């Protein structure tokens, strides 16, 4: 059975379409990523799947339950870590976890055992009795992740789990998310606008832009759609014969020669470099420098949307500002 099945899901807010007819399925045990710039509709999608927003149209089922009709059953099956902190600052870390575990109906001994367990895991045991309003941003995030796990959900939603965290904590959370997915078998849906995060963690990634999916596949295959790695050679000497020879090799997908630098697109570039160097020598061309660049999801995003994610975010915030000013004038 699919952990998540979404069919033609739409959400509009006052005429603005935040999520525009998306359909996808996530298998049980999968680690699935929604990648896209801010404002692409990732959080809205997650909120609909978590029963916090009602879909405008289309259907979605989580753990086999319809998110519009069977809300309590969905809620029982999921855990969610929100993008913005959703903690009670006037309560201590432990009290926040107690609130949560009691809401999910865990018995007293079970509750204490799991709270201690998750506190150890996120290394907050010695801060458990401190009021959450005194926590740092990273500590709050860790506490929230811990909270999302206490009731052992079948499906865990992580909305930008490492947003605003330092590199070390981020790494820590990545390892943890992976472990949780592989060892405990929890299906995980995460949203992120960090390319390397999606690449490192996810089995499959959906690239989202303006409320729609522009691509959906494994990170490796997404990168393959670009035709492979780029090998750049800085050459010196008479290159004519070498270039002609290269033209006969069908494993080279694209080639570009510009100011002594030859850029070749091919699959598994690292295996071809020795061959290329030998060929160059054979034609009497000196190779001064070799560079291998693996395509990143950033390149994939660029390929599918025609812009980098950073540019996309800049224009998105511009648009939002415009909208807000529009409201102000009215």
């Amino acid at each position, binding site marked *: 059975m699919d952990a998540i099945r979404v069919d033609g899901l739409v959400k509009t807010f006052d005429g603005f379409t935040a999520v525009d007819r998306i359909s996808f399925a996530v298998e049980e045990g999968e680690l699935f990523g929604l990648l896209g710039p801010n404002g692409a509709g990732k959080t809205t999608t997650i*909120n609909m799947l978590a029963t916090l927003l009602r879909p405008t149209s289309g259907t979605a089922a989580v753990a086999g339950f319809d998110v519009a009709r069977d809300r*309590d059953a969905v809620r029982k099956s999921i855990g969610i870590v929100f993008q913005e902190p959703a903690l*009670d600052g006037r309560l201590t870390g432990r009290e926040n976890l107690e609130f949560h575990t009691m809401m999910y109906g865990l018995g007293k001994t079970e509750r204490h055992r799991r709270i201690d367990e998750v506190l150890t895991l996120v290394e907050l045991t010695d801060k458990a009795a401190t009021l959450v309003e005194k926590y740092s941003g990273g500590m709050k995030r860790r506490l929230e992740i811990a909270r999302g796990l206490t009731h052992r959900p079948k499906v865990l939603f992580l909305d930008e789990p490492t947003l605003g965290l330092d590199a070390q904590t981020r790494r820590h959370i990545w390892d943890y998310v992976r472990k949780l997915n592989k060892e405990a078998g929890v299906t995980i849906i995460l949203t992120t606008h960090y390319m390397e995060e999606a690449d490192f963690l996810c089995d499959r990634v959906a690239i989202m832009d303006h409320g729609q999916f522009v691509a959906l596949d494994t990170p490796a295959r997404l990168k393959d759609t670009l035709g492979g790695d780029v090998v750049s050679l800085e050459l010196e000497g008479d290159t004519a014969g070498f270039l002609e020879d290269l033209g006969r090799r069908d494993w080279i997908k694209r080639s570009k020669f510009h100011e002594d630098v030859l850029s070749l697109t091919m699959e598994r570039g690292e295996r071809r470099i020795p061959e290329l160097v030998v060929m160059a020598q054979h034609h009497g061309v000196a190779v001064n420098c070799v560079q291998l660049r693996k395509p990143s999801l950033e390149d994939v995003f660029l390929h599918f949307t025609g812009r980098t994610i950073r540019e996309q975010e800049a224009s998105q915030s511009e648009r939002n500002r415009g909208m807000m000013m529009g409201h102000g004038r009215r």
Partner: protein
Amino acid sequence: MRIHWTAVYVLWRREMIRYFRTKSRIFGSLAMPVFFLIALGLGFRRMPVPGTDGGTGYIGFLAPGIIGMTLLFSSSMQGMSVLWDREFGFLKEIMVAPVSRVSLVLGRIAGGTTTSMIQGLLIFIASLVMGFRFRGPAALAFGLVFMVLIAFTFIGFGLVFASRMKDMQGFGLVMNFIIFPFFFLSGALTPLENFPWAIRALSYVDPLTYGVDGLRAVLIGASSFPVLVDLAVMTAFALIMLFLGTYFFEKSEGI
């Protein structure tokens, strides 16, 4: 719809922890009613109040009104605390919990009623210090019934408003244009009989009018309406407002 009692209890307990942890809030919110008691209680102590011939004086008339006022303010705030939870993000944590929405409303009502009753009783004690005398233990027991009904009514009222507002913007508006009129129109400070008929007509649709009148009836034995009328009207208001509060809370989207 099923009621999850654990969830009701957890929400109630959270409210208790928060309430007792912020002492400044307890005293801060008691300051205004206490000032009213002192300023008006002393200032008008020689004023004859129609309908209170039993020698209770103005403090006897005023104390039930100020208790009603305390309950009005603290209960509507409690109902609207949904807005705070939304502002600080905690509402999402509450809304994704796998419990019926009715349980969430009941938990909030339980917590809100408890804190409001504590506030109301503290003001009751303060009025005793000011020289307020009531008719004995049975009167107090019936007084508690009216206090709970007032609390229910305005928590429900707060819930309705919190569900209709998306942020804190409208909060001040509700305070100034709805809560304060409720207070002044109720006859908490001045006898209804002194109002011109047009204003008195508004007083008759103000739930607090019947709450304060009921409190006066049972505590000092003087009132504008028969006590059973007060009780019936207050019970009706409490049930309707609780129903509406629950209905709107359930209907509103979680975030």
